[in-house]
């Protein structure tokens, strides 16, 4: 039993080492080994996309709550303006961003394809 345990333990250890070493075994000499990172422009784009989605989701919820009667006409009229403005501002800011996606330099296998448009 002890010998079998040692053999199984050795198999386990070797299997784990292979799994851990796999990225280096698969790509011994990769074209690039750096992690893609966001530059300031890409971070700003992410912020704007979040602002846009937040405003649009808020508008959608407000419309539905108004339709159900949870939000009164008075509250709806007061709230819908700022939300529309925020959504429009985020969309305009996104439009002002460079139309081209982030630089493809440094892109590596598995990285998502760049977007072609930022509006929906």
């Amino acid at each position: 039993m002890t010998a079998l345990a040692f053999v199984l333990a050795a198999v386990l250890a070797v299997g784990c080492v292979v799994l851990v070493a796999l990225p280096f075994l698969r790509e011994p000499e990769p074209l690039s080994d750096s992690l893609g990172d966001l530059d300031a422009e890409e971070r700003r784009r992410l912020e704007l996309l979040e602002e846009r989605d937040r405003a649009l989701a808020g508008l959608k919820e407000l419309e539905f709550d108004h339709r159900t009667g949870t939000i009164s006409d008075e509250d709806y009229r007061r709230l819908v303006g700022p939300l529309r403005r925020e959504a429009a501002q985020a969309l305009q800011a996104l439009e002002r961003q460079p139309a081209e996606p982030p630089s493809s330099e440094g892109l590596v296998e598995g990285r998502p394809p760049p977007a072609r448009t930022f509006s929906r």
Partner: protein
Amino acid sequence: MPELGRAALLVTFGLTLYALGAGAAAAWLGRRRLALSARNALVAAFFSTLVAAVVLVSALVRHDFSFVYVAETTSRELPMPYTVSAFWGGQAGSLLLWLLVLTGFGALAVRLNRRWAGDLIVWVVPVFAAVALFFSFLLVVVANPFETQAAPSDGAGMNPSLQNPYMLAHPPMLYLGYVGLTVPFAFALAALLSGRTDERWLIATRRWTLLAWTALGVGQLLGAHWAYVEVGWGGYYAWDPVENAALMPWLAATAFLHSVMIQEKRGMLRIWNMILVILAFSLSLFGTFLTRSGVVNSIHSFTQSSIGPWFLAFIAVTVGVSLTLLFWRLPLLRSPTRLESPISREAAFLYNNLLLLALCLTILWGVVYPLLSEAVRGESVVLGRSYYDFFLRIFGLPLLLLMGLGPLIAWRRASFRSLATTFRWPTVAALVAGVVLILLGSGSSIPGLVTYTFATFVAATIVIEFARGTRARKALADTSWPGAFSSLIARNRRRYGGYVVHAAIVLLAVGVAGSSAFQTVAPDTKLRPGQSMRVGPYTLDYRRLTQHQGANALEERAQLVVNRDGHRLGTLAAGKNAYAVEQQVSNEVGIRTDWLRMEDLFVIADQIDPNGTVYFRVFVKPLVNLIWVAGFVFVLGSVIALWPDAREQRRLVARSYAVGIPATT
């Protein structure tokens, strides 16, 4: 094969150490292959821990008493389900379960989020690895489940109170909850470490938090039901330190689940959310420490051990590092928006958060006070039930009311006129319920009456929300009523799943109020066979005492005939089990449930004399079964909210693609 178990744990230790070091280096230096290698190490750590777990379960099933752990926690007579449950019944086994779930959750969370949060994941891996390293260190150095000895002929057996079906599920559910809170913690710290404090860490962890929170909630209810039927004192929650240990992280996670919505909708409370995640995780560690260290006296604490100082040191390091990172990243976490009005949904959620946190910290103070008083004054002073009950009413009742108010107030700012319209019918329903209850005699307990009234208010808001929403969907989609109802839920699972969870809390509150504020307690009564006693509307005729040799215990039962208002309802048995191997006796209560009234007749045979005389304690507990029904409703609501949303996933991936976030790790 203890050698295999020991080797597997050593491999896990090495893998988590590597995942921590390599993962941190990869994230810091921006090395892709090294980051992938660290991630693989975390996955491999799960499989090596699984091997160790299989070795231990196999030893338990084979009654291999050469394992010290197996000999200390089981015996040959122990039924097989409890033999398997000994895996988490003892110290080392429960730590192994912690590590197994932790590495499994880590591997899964990393895999599921790699497509749209790859730049966060590189930091998540070392954080997960650090926590896993601590637990693997404990298992290798402090509490090894694979210690061996010359095998005795039989084991010491299991504590009789643990030999209950609820104990098969209660501890694993709590562990799922405790460990599940590591996921939001790891992503929060990864966000701080990487400086990626955008919404993604929140979105990545929302369902994990909900899963952990659900497991903690269900685990506590299972534990409460276990205490109710097994411990035999007539209650289900005694503010025991170990019970509180699970409640505190649940309260912190509840606050987080609400405040996260404010960040998503309004971009506010970013620092607060970080604090809540750190608090919830630290409290989950503290809960494990309380349960496993034996530092407090508790009916749920079955061990005295040496892991306490290690746990305290780890909690201190966790809190210290987390708060340092938080302080470092404060400039990134400042909110661009402010609270516009104290009458708004975000304000209501904020009040809810403050009340939840106040209740959580009050309970924490009650738990640590005996330890502090012993350290300072040399004597342990325990804060009793009245302390906890007082604060539960002070903070819990406004929380209950807010549950009805919050979801119906507009974001940003609501007008008084709008509020009056929105809450007109729920207020009328609550007032009518209050008056009717007073007329029915429920005015004997003011907190109970207030709970019922507030519960009616919340229930009315939930019903109205579902009714209005279904009507609106029907008008929009021109579909049938059932179609509109299912479409309503499917289109906003979080919101309507949340309402179902709120309905569960309403049932829970009514059940707790009914069974505690309005229960009937009979004074201890000594009966000989043939004698009767009366409790509320019930009459109990004690007929005889019976004995039966069970699988591993001698079962002695007092047989009672139960009548209500002159009608015979059936028989009920209450008594004790005498466990030969464990040399212990357990109370086996008799419970008769009236599902129409949701009421229990609860009988304890406190003392059984050799001549057949029995000292009975009897309770009538109105509405107590609503608590257990609430558990099912709670799970239903959580499943609705947890259900994957393909549209949201597509939106997140599209957003990441639009920016070009790397997904390689």
